[in-house]
């Protein structure tokens, strides 16, 4: 079990991973902001098992199926530390992937995980486009601990009787849940006039991690105040 401390929870959270000899941890290649000198970082490309055909190629193109990941291990048989932080402001939360609870992360929410876990980018079909989110999610495979980051505060909600989540607020959900992208209100006009447009309607039993704020809305709000771009 990897020892993790989450520092400065809130606006500028960071995670400190304490590696014992022989243990490994991996993250998105850009997430490391500090590490001990005895830690080796090896960058690999995460790829999905190739599927042929036109659809396979199209999916790979759309789903941005390769990411640079870095794996951290100590080189000298001594313990070491790795500090990880997201690019944007907000909190970090530690989650466990178990046989009973297998998580699916939205694209930008996965920060890092214990070696032994793997990520399977899964194309969510064209409903991903309408969600306004990246049309891919990461299936977390295997058993172990991992970190997610969120824009704002992160809360994990137990779902038994359905939950509707605005697409910009989803961090991760467990696989016992199903979702449909649908209109927020009954009619098209009301949905768009209510400002929500499409939402994700989850059914089944499981957990959902949500973020309090929506970085897309932050961008939209700020854009009104920004000077026009040149060129």
């Amino acid at each position, binding site marked *: 079990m990897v020892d993790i401390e989450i520092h400065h929870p*809130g*606006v500028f959270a960071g995670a400190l991973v304490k590696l014992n000899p022989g243990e490994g941890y991996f993250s998105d290649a850009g997430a490391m902001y500090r590490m001990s000198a005895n830690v080796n970082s090896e960058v690999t490309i995460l790829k999905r098992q190739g599927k042929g055909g036109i659809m396979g190629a199209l999916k790979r193109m759309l789903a941005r199926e390769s990411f640079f990941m870095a794996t951290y291990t100590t080189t000298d048989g001594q313990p070491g530390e790795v500090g990880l932080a997201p690019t944007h*402001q*907000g909190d970090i939360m530690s989650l466990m992937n178990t046989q009973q609870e297998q998580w699916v992360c939205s694209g930008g929410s996965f920060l890092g995980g214990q070696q032994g876990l793997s990520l399977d980018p899964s194309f969510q079909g064209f409903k991903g486009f309408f969600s306004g989110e990246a049309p891919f999610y990461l299936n977390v495979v295997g058993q172990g601990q991992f970190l997610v980051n969120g824009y*704002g*505060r992160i809360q994990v*909600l137990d779902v038994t*009787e*359905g*939950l*509707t*989540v*605005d697409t*910009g*607020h989803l961090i991760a959900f467990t696989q016992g849940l199903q979702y449909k992208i649908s209109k*927020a*209100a*009954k009619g098209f*006009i*009301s*949905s768009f*006039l*209510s*400002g*929500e447009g499409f939402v994700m*309607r*989850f*059914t089944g039993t499981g957990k959902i991690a*949500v*973020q*309090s*704020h*929506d970085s897309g*809305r*932050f961008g*939209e*709000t*700020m854009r*009104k*105040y*920004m*000077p026009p771009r040149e060129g």
Partner: protein
Amino acid sequence: MQTNIVGNPDFGSLEISLDPGEEIWAESGAMSRMSGQMQVKSKVLGSLPGALLRRMVAGESVMVGRYQGVQPGDFASFSPGLPGTVMEHTLNGPDDRFFMTAGAFLACTPGIKLKLKFGGLRSFFSSEGVVLLVARGTGTVWYNGYGACVEKQLDGVQPLVVDTGHVVAWEPTIDYKIKGSGGLKATMFSGEGLTMHFQGTGKIVVQTRTPPGLAGWLPFRM
């Protein structure tokens, strides 16, 4: 209805639970999550032609979302587009009013009448936006500021000087004048010359940061 403000002053949100039939109105797009059965409708602020005109002139949102509880235990959470603080104000009667700058409105109970109002000529100089949102009636409004919110109770004697852009909301028992401090040159070149002088007896809420401030600061660093 039970309401709870969480996450201030960094990432403030409003969490509510509704009994069947109870309703809350919220800023367009502010809903982050809700229980599966909640009903969503929308509502125009004021008359439709007037609302559309204001949208064209001022770029303001003219709609609110209406969220209605269907089952016992229904809940929803609302967050502003910007990080910051969520505040609450209670209105007690048909003539009780509360002014919010455009963009500050988050949610209200359905008894509240919401109207957009031009702030007059002086508002062009205030950089608070030319449109104000006026809430009126009996109930509660929730609003948000970018950064922390500071609430001041004015006593009718001592005025409060606020830099333009930092005003979030105020009671109509107080009023303001735009004043230039320093000469014309200082005003034009410092960006600090124009201030709002609030006077009267009542509450005023100011924010410690402004979105235009961030928008002006960031591009030089990009």
